[in-house]
C-alpha cells in the first residue's frame, strides 16, 4: 500500500501512531513491510489457501460472531443433498461438465430451489456476467429452509467447516510457504480485532483480482469478514484500492463490453431478443429484494440515450442496442485483431503495448488494423509500436508494410478539464479545471461529443435503417469556450436523471418511472444532482459535520457511505455496541436513523416478517440487512453467481512449479483459456517439463512510477527516481544463477523474453514449498521503449488466461526461467523462444484443464524429469536446484 498508494498509507501510519498493529502479507518485502509490525512472506498465487486457513481457524475454534452470522448470513440455510464438495471430487464441485469446462449449478442450490441454477454458465463466462453482481446479488427465489442451530449437516455453516477442514496451519505452510507461527499471528490478530466493540477492514489492491481465481480470492476475504461480523459496520468491509483514479467509476458507468450503466447487462442476441426478455432477465419476477424495479432503470437509460425517439410503442428504441454474441473482452478482441477480424481500435488513456498482459499479442494485433486512434498525454509505445517495438527487431512487424494507420490525438490531463472521479467507496468527487490544456490537447468529453457530432452530420439525411440508432441519439449538450467544450455538469445532470416535462432533477432512483416520463443515464447515480445542485462538488470540512461527513462529495446509492449498514445494528435494531454505533432503529419515531443514510426501508421495523409469497422489497424481513440479495442474507456460500464454485477453493496458479497439495485438480477448472499457438502456457505439474520454467515471478508497482509509465517515464523528476528496468532477486537465487548486482539478467517464458538489471536484495526470500525451495522474483511493470527512461515491459512475459467470472487475466503470477546476461537480439530471439517451447513440450500442446481424478485415485505427481539439455541450460543449475529442494 505504501508502494502503490502512499497518500492513502498516511492513514495506516496514523493508525499505527495510535497503537494499531500493522501486518503485511506480500511475496516481497516492500516499503509497506518496512513499516509493518509483522511481515509475512507468501508464495504468489496461494491466497485462498492462506485465507482458507483463517476460515478454518475461526470455524474450528468457534470464534465467529455467532449472533451476526446466524441472523445476517446464509450460514443456517440448508443446501440441496445433490451438492458435492471439492473435498469429495478431488477439487471439482458437483455439476462439472468437462466438455464445456463449466458447471451446471443446479446441485449448488438451496434445498427446495434446485430449479434456480439453470443458467448457461459457459455463456455467462464469455460475457463476464459476474460483473453484474457488483450492485446486486444474483437471483435466489422464495423462502429457504434454515437451521439456526447450525447443526444440520447440509447447512452452509457445516459445509463451510468441512470444506476448509484440511486448510490447517501445516497445510498453509506447505502451500504458501508461510511459517506456522506467522500464520497464527495473523489469524489471532484478525479475530481479536473483530468483536461487538471492534471491527477490522480488509483492504486489497487490484493486483488481487489479476488471478485465474481472482474473484474467489475476494470471496474468501468476504467470508472471513462475514464470519467475524465486519460487513455493514463502521471500520469494517472489503475495500479495493484502485489502480488509478475512477476505476470504480469506469464500472459504474462502464467502459466494459458486457455492462451498461448501473450494472444493467448488455443485451445478448440469444438471451434478450426483445425488450421484455431483457427487462425480465434483470428483474427476475418473483424475486425478493430491491432489484424488482429494474424495468424503470432500463427505460430511463434508453430515454437518456434516444430521448424523444424512445417511446413505449417502439420499446424505447431497444432494437437500436448492440447485442453481444459471445466473448468480446479485450483479449478476445486482441486475438481477433491478429486474425484480421477487427478494423479499427480506440485507445483512450491506455497503453496495452506495455500495460496489458501478453505484450507481443497486443502489438501484433494493433499492427494488423486499418486504423488505430491513440489519445494520450504523451507519445506512448502503443502509438509507436509499428516502428520501434520488439517485433520490428525480430522482423515480425515491418514498418514499411505495417498496414495500421495510427492517429495520435493529444489529451487533456485531469487538471485541464472538469469532471468527477468515483473512488473505491463509491464516492463521487467533482474536480474543477485548474489550467487550460496546451495546444491541441482536448478532454475525452470533447473528443466523444464532437466525434459523435461529426459522424452524425456525415450521416444526416441517410435513409438506411442501420444509421437510425446514431441519428436518433439525443446528442445535444451545451458547449462553451473557443473549443466548444461540452458542459460536464450537463452530462452529470443527465446521468442523475430528470422529469422530462419539467426538467426537474430526480432526487432518488425510486422516482424513476417505467413509462418514459423520466430519464436518467445511470440509476445508481440518481441523487448526485438532487435539487439541481452538483452534490459531488460539496466540500464541507470534516470539522463542521459529523464524522461520517455526508456533506463531502456524494456516494451512490443515495449518498450512503456504508452499504448494508442495517447490519451495524443487531436484529432488534440496537447498535452492537456503543463504540460501533452507526445506524439504529428509533422505536419512538418508528424509523431507522443514525450517522449515515440507513440502507434499509426507513420505516420497516426490525420485527417485520414478510408473507410467505411476498416478492420484491416486501419480501425482505426487518432483520435482513442484505437487501439486494434475494434472501436478504449475506452469502458465505454462493448458490449461484460465481461460475467457479459456491466456495473458494485453493487452485494453483495456471503456471506453477508445484503440484496442488490439496487436490488433484491443479488449476481453476473453469478458467477462460485461449488455446492458440501464439498464446502458449508454461507447463505445470502434473504435466512434464515444468522445470524448464522453475521460478515464480510476480509484477507490481513502484511508488515512483504510474501503471504503464506513460505519465511517469516521460516526466523528468519522476523518471530519475527509478531510471531503469530491474528485477529483484534473493541473494540465494543470485548465487544459484550466477547473477550479479546491477549486472544483466534475462527472464524467459513461453511467450517472451525480457532483460533487466539485477537487484540482489534480502527483501526477497526463498520459500519452502512441499519440501522444495521455491524462488520468487519481482519485476516492476512500468517500463517500455518510450520516454526518458526505458526498459523492457514485464507484461510481455505473461500470456492470456482469465478468471471465468470477470475475464480478468492472470498477470500477477507466472513461471519463468532467469538467466544471467543479456537476451539474444533480432531473429535469434525467436529461435531462443522456440527452443524453450520445444524443451517444455509446448509445440502444439496446451496443458489439460482437468487434472482431478473424480474416482479418487490421483494422477502421478510430476512427470518424468526433463531429459533434454537445451543450449545454455547447464546440468549443474538444475542439480543444485534440486539438491536444495
Amino acid at each position, binding site marked *: 500500500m505504501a508502494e502503490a498508494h502512499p497518500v492513502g498509507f498516511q492513514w495506516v501510519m496514523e493508525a*499505527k501512531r495510535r497503537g494499531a498493529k500493522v501486518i503485511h502479507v506480500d511475496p516481497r518485502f516492500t516499503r509497506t513491510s518496512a*513499516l509493518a509490525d509483522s511481515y509475512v*512472506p507468501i508464495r504468489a498465487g496461494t491466497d485462498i489457501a492462506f485465507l482458507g486457513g483463517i476460515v478454518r481457524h475461526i470455524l474450528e475454534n468457534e470464534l465467529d460472531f455467532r449472533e451476526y452470522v446466524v441472523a445476517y448470513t446464509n450460514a443456517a440455510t440448508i443446501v440441496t443433498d445433490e451438492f458435492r464438495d471439492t473435498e469429495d471430487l478431488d477439487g471439482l464441485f458437483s455439476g462439472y461438465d468437462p466438455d464445456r469446462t463449466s458447471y451446471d449449478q443446479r446441485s449448488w442450490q438451496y434445498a427446495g430451489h434446485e430449479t434456480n441454477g439453470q443458467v448457461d454458465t459457459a455463456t455467462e463466462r464469455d460475457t463476464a456476467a459476474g460483473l453484474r453482481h457488483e450492485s446486486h446479488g444474483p437471483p435466489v427465489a422464495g423462502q429457504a429452509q434454515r437451521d439456526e442451530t447450525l447443526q444440520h449437516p447440509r447447512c452452509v455453516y457445516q459445509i463451510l467447516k468441512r470444506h476448509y477442514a484440511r486448510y490447517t496451519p501445516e497445510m498453509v505452510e506447505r502451500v504458501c510457504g508461510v511459517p506456522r507461527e506467522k500464520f497464527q499471528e495473523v489469524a489471532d490478530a484478525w479475530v481479536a480485532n473483530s468483536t461487538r466493540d471492534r471491527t477490522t477492514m480488509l483492504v486489497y489492491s487490484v493486483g488481487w483480482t489479476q488471478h485465474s481465481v481472482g474473484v474467489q480470492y475476494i470471496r474468501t476475504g468476504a467470508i472471513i469478514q462475514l464470519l467475524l461480523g465486519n460487513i455493514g459496520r463502521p471500520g469494517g468491509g472489503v475495500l479495493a484500492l484502485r489502480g488509478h483514479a475512477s476505476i470504480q467509476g469506469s464500472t459504474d458507468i462502464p467502459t466494459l463490453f458486457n455492462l451498461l450503466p448501473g450494472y444493467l447487462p448488455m443485451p445478448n442476441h440469444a438471451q434478450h431478443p426483445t425488450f421484455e426478455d431483457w427487462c425480465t432477465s434483470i428483474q427476475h419476477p418473483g424475486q425478493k429484494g430491491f432489484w424488482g424495479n429494474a424495468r424503470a432503470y432500463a427505460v430511463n437509460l434508453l430515454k437518456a440515450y434516444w430521448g424523444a425517439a424512445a417511446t413505449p410503442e417502439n420499446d424505447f428504441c431497444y432494437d437500436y442496442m448492440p447485442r453481444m454474441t459471445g466473448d468480446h473482452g479485450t483479449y478476445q478482441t486482441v486475438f481477433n485483431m491478429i486474425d484480421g477480424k477487427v478494423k479499427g481500435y480506440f485507445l483512450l488513456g491506455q497503453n496495452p503495448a506495455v500495460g496489458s498482459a501478453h505484450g507481443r499479442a497486443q502489438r501484433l494485433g494493433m499492427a494488423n488494423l486499418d486504423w488505430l486512434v491513440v489519445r494520450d498525454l504523451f507519445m506512448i509505445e502503443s502509438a509507436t509500436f509499428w516502428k520501434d517495438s520488439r517485433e520490428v527487431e525480430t522482423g515480425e512487424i515491418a514498418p514499411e508494410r505495417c498496414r495500421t494507420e495510427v492517429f495520435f490525438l493529444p489529451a487533456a490531463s485531469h487538471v485541464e478539464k472538469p469532471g468527477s472521479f468515483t473512488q473505491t467507496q463509491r464516492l463521487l468527487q467533482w474536480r474543477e479545471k485548474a489550467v487550460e490544456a496546451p495546444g491541441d490537447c482536448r478532454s475525452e468529453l470533447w473528443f466523444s461529443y464532437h466525434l459523435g457530432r461529426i459522424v452524425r452530420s456525415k450521416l444526416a439525411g441517410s435513409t438506411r435503417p442501420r444509421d437510425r440508432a446514431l441519428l436518433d441519439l439525443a446528442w445535444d449538450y451545451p458547449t462553451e469556450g473557443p473549443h466548444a467544450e461540452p458542459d460536464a455538469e450537463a452530462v452529470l445532470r443527465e446521468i442523475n436523471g430528470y422529469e422530462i416535462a419539467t426538467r426537474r432533477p430526480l432526487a432518488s432512483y425510486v422516482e424513476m418511472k417505467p413509462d418514459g416520463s423520466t430519464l436518467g443515464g445511470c440509476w445508481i447515480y440518481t441523487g448526485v444532482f438532487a435539487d439541481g445542485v452538483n452534490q459531488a462538488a460539496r466540500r464541507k470540512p470534516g470539522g463542521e459535520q459529523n464524522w461520517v461527513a455526508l456533506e463531502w462529495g456524494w456516494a451512490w446509492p443515495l449518498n450512503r457511505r456504508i452499504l448494508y449498514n442495517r447490519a451495524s445494528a443487531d436484529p432488534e435494531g440496537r447498535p452492537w455496541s456503543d463504540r460501533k454505533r452507526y445506524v439504529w432503529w428509533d422505536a419512538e419515531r418508528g424509523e431507522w436513523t443514525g450517522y449515515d443514510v440507513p440502507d434499509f426501508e426507513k420505516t420497516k421495523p426490525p420485527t417485520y416478517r414478510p408473507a410467505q409469497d411476498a416478492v420484491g422489497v416486501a419480501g425482505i424481513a426487518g432483520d435482513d440487512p442484505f437487501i439486494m440479495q434475494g434472501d436478504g442474507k449475506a452469502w458465505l456460500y454462493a448458490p449461484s453467481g460465481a461460475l467457479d464454485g459456491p466456495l473458494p477453493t485453493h487452485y494453483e496458479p495456471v503456471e506453477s512449479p508445484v503440484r496442488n497439495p490439496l487436490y488433484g485438480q491443479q488449476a481453476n477448472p473453469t478458467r477462460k483459456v485461449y488455446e492458440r499457438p501464439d498464446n502458449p502456457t508454461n507447463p505445470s505439474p502434473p504435466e512434464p517439463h515444468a522445470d524448464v520454467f522453475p521460478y515464480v515471478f510476480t509484477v507490481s508497482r513502484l511508488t515512483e512510477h504510474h501503471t504503464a509509465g506513460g505519465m511517469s517515464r516521460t516526466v523528468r523528476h519522476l523518471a*530519475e*527516481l527509478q531510471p531503469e528496468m530491474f528485477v529483484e532477486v534473493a541473494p540465494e537465487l543470485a548465487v544459484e544463477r550466477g547473477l550479479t548486482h546491477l549486472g544483466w539478467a534475462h527472464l524467459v517464458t513461453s511467450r517472451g523474453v525480457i532483460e533487466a538489471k539485477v537487484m540482489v536484495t*534480502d527483501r526477497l526470500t526463498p520459500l*519452502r514449498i512441499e519440501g522444495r525451495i521455491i524462488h520468487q522474483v519481482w519485476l516492476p511493470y512500468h517500463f517500455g521503449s518510450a520516454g526518458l527512461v526505458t526498459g523492457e515491459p514485464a507484461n510481455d512475459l505473461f500470456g492470456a488466461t482469465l478468471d471465468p467470472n470477470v475475464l480478468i487475466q492472470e498477470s500477477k503470477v507466472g513461471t519463468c526461467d532467469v538467466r544471467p546476461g543479456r537476451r539474444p537480439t533480432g531473429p535469434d530471439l525467436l529461435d531462443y523462444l522456440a527452443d524453450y517451447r520445444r524443451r517444455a513440450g509446448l509445440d502444439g500442446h496446451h496443458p489439460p484443464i482437468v487434472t482431478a481424478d473424480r474416482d479418487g485415485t490421483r494422477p502421478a505427481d510430476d512427470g518424468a524429469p526433463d531429459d533434454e539439455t537445451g543450449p545454455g541450460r547447464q546440468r549443474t543449475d538444475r542439480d543444485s536446484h534440486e539438491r536444495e529442494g
Partner: protein
Amino acid sequence: MAEPRRTTAPVNPAEQAGHVDPPPRMGFFTDTSVCIGCKACEVACKEWNLVPESGLDLLGMSYDNTGALTANSWRHVAFVEQARPAGWQSSPPMAGTPSGPPITRATAEAAAGTAVDQGTRPGVLPAPDPAPAGAMAAGSQFLGMPGTGLPGRDAERDGRTDLRWLMMSDVCKHCTHAACLDVCPTGSLFRTEFGTVVVQEDICNGCGYCVPACPYGVIDQRSGDGRAWKCTLCYDRIGAGRMPACAQACPTESIQYGELDELRDRARARVDRLHADGVPEARLYGHDPDDGVGGDGAFFLLLDEPEVYGLPPDPVVTTRDLPRMWRRAGLAALTMTAAVVAAFVGRPS
C-alpha cells in the same frame, strides 16, 4: 579535551545576524520513524524550486537513485537495507524461511562498483576498486566503524531472518552556526529573518569556499553553472506564510515544518512515545543547541546511530577554530616580523 564544545551561547541566529525583532525561528523536524520512502519531498522540492534532474542512472543502492544531497537534489531520501531488526517488529521478517547465507563476493563487488558520477560536485564518485567490498562480503571484517559492509550485507549468518529497511529524507540542516555563511566572501549566503540559511543565486560567484566548509557535505556546486545550490527551506513560500514544498507533499507527516521551539517539544514527546512502545533505538539528531554547530534548524528523529544514515556523528562548525587559528597565525607573523626586525636591528652597522 579541554576545548569547550559550545561555541557561543544559544541565541536566535536571526537576531545575531542583525535582524531586528525577527519572527520565531522556523525549521524542519524530520521523523524517520514514519517515512515511507515515497520521495514526494524530492519531487515537490524540485518542482517548486525548479531544480534540474540529477541523473537518470540506476545506482543499485536499494531504492535510492538520487545518491546524495547535491546541487541538483535538495532533499534526498536514503534507503538503508540491513539484516538487523527494526524496533517495532514483533517477529523477524524472514524467520522460518529457508534463506541462506548472504550475498556472494561477486554480487558485492558489482554493487560497490556502481556508484556513479552525479554530474555535480562533490556528488558520489565511482568506486575506484570494488574488490574491498567483495572481500567484506566474504566474511566479517571489523574496521572499527559501523556500517562498513554494504547495506544488508554485514555479519556472518547461516540463514538471514532479520531485515529492516530504514528510510530518511535528508536536507540542509540550517545550522545555528553555519560555516558556509561564515566563509562566503560575496554575501550570497545569508541568514534570513526565520533563522534559515539561503544562497542567493544572483550574487553567488561560484568560488566554492562554502563546499568544504559544510560539516554535513550538503552545499554543492552545479556542474556547468559553478554556483552553489542547496535547500532554502522554501524562503519564498515561508515568507508568504506557506509551508515548504517538501513538508506540504509529505503524506505521513514525516517532514514537519514549524517554529523550532515547538518542533523540539514535539520531537521529544515522539521519542518518549517510541521508547514507551519498545523502540529504544529512537533518538534525536541535530536538536541540541549545545552540539558542535549550535543545533540544527532542520533536525531528525533517527532509529539508529547517525552513521547508519550517512550522517556525521559529531559535526562541528568548521569555522570554529578560525579565530584561534588567525590569532596564532598573527602571533607567528608578529614573531617572525620581530625576528626579522631584530635581525636587522642587531646587525652591526
